[in-house]
């Protein structure tokens, strides 16, 4: 065990003692996680548990310093924990390669920790851990980085803003279907078309491609009905072409369809091109003849921007290889479908080549394969130094939290740019948003002996039976029960009352929200964290616990009335502000992080498997950011959201199913 004399001198003996006794959970052993695990193991922490679903990839090694080349493909959590054990052999560090959203990690499990750290790369997992920490009443140190930018904050349920008190920008950018399919104007439109439409239709599973009108309002649908019908016909024709996969002229037929016939159809609608630059049909034979001497598509330079003729050669090469793989799969009796993976060289080459051919047709600047990879894979840059700075601040905050110095904790932002007066900006921790739909809730634990026997009706009966007692939840007679986005019960929908909880997916680890349906009710909605009964070790004398019980009343927070100026509904405010924040267009901010718009008629979406967590920058910081920039931007955009987080690639620390 390393000694801690200097730490004690600086932070005081109590902090060192608290750190040594605390059980801490680190969720994520990637860029921030590696740095944090190192800091904790060297800052007096002795009981450290790390969870990460991911395995190590070559592109992690520029920053995830606990990993070496020989560790590639191994579990991040395990390798990281072994490394910190080597740093400080006396510590009790454990690792789990797992998804933090698994049911096993329920409210009791989270409650076994004194402090939790989020070192995650995706919004969904960060939200989940935030909710679990609120339910288990465990403080959470939250973090995120993206390139040169980063942030750290401390969340203590009821006392500070939680992760969801401020709206976050959408994790994935979406585009109107007509932009993608008929009127692209930017490289990204062509990449989305190549990946989500062309690749998915030709090589993906049947019906894999997005429905054309998905997400469109009825009015929009009516307006675009004619075009949508056309697009559907087009897609069907392409799907038929997919059956020709592996044929000798497959690539040529695909080319003729998408770069010649479909463009001819678009050109037949002159109205469409009155305000826009009209596309040109591409000529297969002419391009074929114009290939650069010596260009070898198998050895194409990722950094080079290929000429149209070379893109054609790359397309034909990649399409051939992908087709062979599909045919091979089918021969072995499999479905014969490929999913786009940015680290699959053939898939990437196909998307890059076809996106660039489309760019040539529409007069859009073509891109290198390297650049297309970032767009198709939603890669967010990541460097060692930002993660080091953020994780260092997390360790300091942790010592403050453990010694109950919450008032000294802060939100800190790592910023970057020429001549900025600050590289790290701090703000005091903010009070919770009184309208927050996540932390302004009463969190209670629902203990269930057997989720296969207890019904939803039993739960509601128990809640109603509490009426008039000291633990009245004040929800009244009319209650709505919701899990995630699923409505399980309301006064007009009682189909599920007799169903066992397990049937409804309500098992330990899940949360059931109960809210009053009475319009006049001021009752705070209740979130019941489902958990198993506590084991009764060696207590034969005690009566058996009831099969169903609600715990946690003693620490129910008191929520005051809403302020008069509070908007009626947090959700709509969030949406409005998100839209407001993005009103400036799809600009890239100073730091290269994409500022996401809340797009109106979003239809085609980039696959979000690669999108990182999204951090938020508060009003105050945004004001300062604005003040730093000259000239100041539109002051009405109050809040700006950055996609902020460490990883990008497939390094989602917790993968969604």
């Amino acid at each position, binding site marked *: 065990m390393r000694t801690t004399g200097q730490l004690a001198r600086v932070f005081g003996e109590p902090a060192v003692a608290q750190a040594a006794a605390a059980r801490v959970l680190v969720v994520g052993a990637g860029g921030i996680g590696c740095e944090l695990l190192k800091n904790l193991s060297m800052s007096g922490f002795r009981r450290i548990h790390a969870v990460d679903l991911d395995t190590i990839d070559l592109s992690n090694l520029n920053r995830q*310093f606990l990993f070496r080349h020989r560790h590639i493909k191994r579990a991040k959590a395990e390798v990281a924990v072994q490394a910190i054990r080597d740093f400080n052999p006396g510590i009790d560090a454990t690792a789990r390669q797992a998804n933090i959203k698994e049911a096993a990690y329920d409210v009791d499990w989270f409650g076994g920790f004194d402090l939790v750290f989020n070192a995650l790369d995706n919004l969904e997992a960060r939200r989940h851990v935030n909710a679990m920490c609120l339910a288990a009443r465990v403080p959470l140190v939250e973090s995120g980085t993206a390139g040169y930018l980063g942030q750290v904050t401390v969340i203590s349920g009821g006392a500070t803003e939680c992760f969801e008190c401020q709206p976050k920008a959408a994790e994935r950018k979406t585009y109107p279907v007509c932009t993608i399919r008929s009127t692209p104007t930017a490289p990204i439109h062509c990449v989305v078309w190549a990946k989500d439409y062309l690749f998915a239709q030709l090589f993906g599973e049947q019906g894999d491609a997005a429905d054309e009108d998905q997400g469109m309002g009825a009015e929009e649908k009516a307006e675009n009905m004619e075009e949508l019908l056309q697009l559907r016909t087009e897609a069907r024709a392409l799907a038929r072409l997919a059956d020709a996969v592996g044929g000798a002229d497959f690539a040529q037929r695909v080319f003729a369809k998408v770069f010649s016939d479909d463009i001819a159809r678009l050109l037949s609608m002159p109205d469409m091109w009155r305000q826009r630059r009209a596309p040109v049909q591409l000529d297969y034979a002419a391009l074929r003849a114009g290939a650069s001497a010596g260009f070898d598509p198998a050895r194409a330079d990722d950094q080079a921007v290929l000429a149209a003729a070379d893109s054609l050669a790359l397309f034909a090469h990649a399409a051939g290889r992908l087709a062979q793989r599909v045919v091979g799969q089918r021969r072995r009796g499999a479905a014969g479908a490929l999913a786009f993976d940015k680290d699959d060289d053939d898939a990437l080459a196909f998307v890059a080549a076809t996106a660039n051919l489309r760019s040539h047709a529409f007069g859009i600047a073509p891109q290198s394969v390297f650049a297309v990879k970032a767009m198709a894979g939603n890669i967010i840059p990541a460097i060692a130094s930002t993660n080091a700075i953020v994780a*260092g601040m997390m360790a300091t905050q942790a010592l403050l939290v453990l010694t109950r110095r919450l008032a000294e904790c802060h939100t800190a932002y790592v910023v970057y740019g020429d001549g900025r007066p600050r590289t790290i900006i701090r703000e005091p921790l903010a009070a919770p948003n009184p309208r927050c739909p996540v932390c302004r809730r009463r969190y209670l634990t629902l203990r269930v002996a057997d989720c296969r026997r207890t019904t939803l009706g039993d739960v509601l009966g128990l809640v109603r039976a509490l009426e008039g007692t000291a633990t009245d939840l004040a929800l009244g007679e009319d209650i709505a029960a919701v899990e995630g986005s699923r409505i399980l019960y309301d006064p007009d929908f009682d189909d599920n009352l007799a169903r066992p909880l397990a049937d409804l997916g309500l098992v330990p680890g899940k949360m059931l929200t109960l809210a009053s349906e009475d319009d006049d009710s001021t009752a705070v909605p209740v979130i019941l964290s489902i958990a198993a009964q506590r084991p009764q070790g060696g207590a034969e004398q005690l009566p058996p616990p009831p099969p169903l019980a609600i715990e946690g009343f003693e620490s129910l927070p008191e929520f005051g009335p809403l302020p008069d100026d509070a908007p009626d509904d947090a959700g709509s405010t969030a949406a409005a502000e998100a839209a407001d924040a993005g009103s400036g267009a799809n600009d890239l901010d100073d730091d290269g992080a994409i500022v996401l718009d809340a797009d109106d008629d979003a239809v085609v979406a980039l696959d979000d498997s690669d999108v990182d967590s999204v951090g938020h920058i508060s009003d105050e910081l945004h004001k300062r950011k604005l003040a730093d920039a000259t000239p100041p931007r539109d002051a009405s955009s109050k809040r700006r959201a950055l996609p902020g987080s460490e990883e990008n690639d497939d390094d989602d620390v917790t993968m969604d199913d």
Partner: protein
Amino acid sequence: MQVAGADAPAGEEISKAEVALYDRQIRLWGLEAQGRLRRSAVCFDGVKAVTLEACKNLVLAGIGHITIHDSRPVAAADLEVQYYFQDGDMGRPKDQVLAERLRLLNPRVDVQAQGMDRAFDVVVAVGKTGSAAQAVAERCRQRGEKFVAADSFGLFGYLFADCLDKHEYLEGAKEGAPPQKATAAYRPLAQSLAARPDVANVQRLQRKYPPLVFVCQALVAGDSVEDEMTAAALEAAVAKTLQERDIPRGIVDGDLVGRVAQSWGAEIVACAAVVGGTLAQEVLKIVTQKDMPVNNWHVYDALRGDGITCTL
């Protein structure tokens, strides 16, 4: 001016394997910067926790060469913060042990523990005060090498950069717009330590300069600075540096001096990680000539969570 990169093969291209390894950072600063980074040589004179942190970040990023210079033996206090040092390293020269361990981190980077004879793009003096700091700073000026002084002690840290009279860089590289060439002039350390801010009013001074920077200046300047100092001794050192430059004494309050004195002579990893991260970032800016390096002081207060930059 000697350019360390000059003896590396010019225009050598970054290999595909390197692009794959450094993918996530090349997407941030570009291939050209990565190439400059690989052709650059940096010296760290002084091994402390912040040296390890900064070197780790630079080795991961793929810098060309690092020389570490500090032949003092590994001591018990080092083991508290140097995670690459083990019990068996006690008594061995710090620079040799650190160089050995850093090499394992990225085999592409040349890490040496040796003298400071070769030419460097940047020399970083870590934890040096008084004449020792001055000597390194002056030597760099004479040799045309860029100089950085840095330290992390307890809950505080600083860095000072002297990128010579004319540092050329590309600024404000924004998507879609070509980066602009720019230059910045830097002050030698001695001049900065004697600089007289042209503001007399305490409030306005405090707005322009974080009080901590004057405490750090007193530490860097002071030959009488000891390994461990009482608040009174540090107070006297701060008073001296302020008085010599006609800066109102009131700019630095006693509470801050007391907190710094308590931190002085101790190292903690949490703070060193932040200062080392910032230090690596500034060294990267200097050698890649992308964006302006801090001109010329940066101070960090871990409890407050402030990282502030100013020119003195």
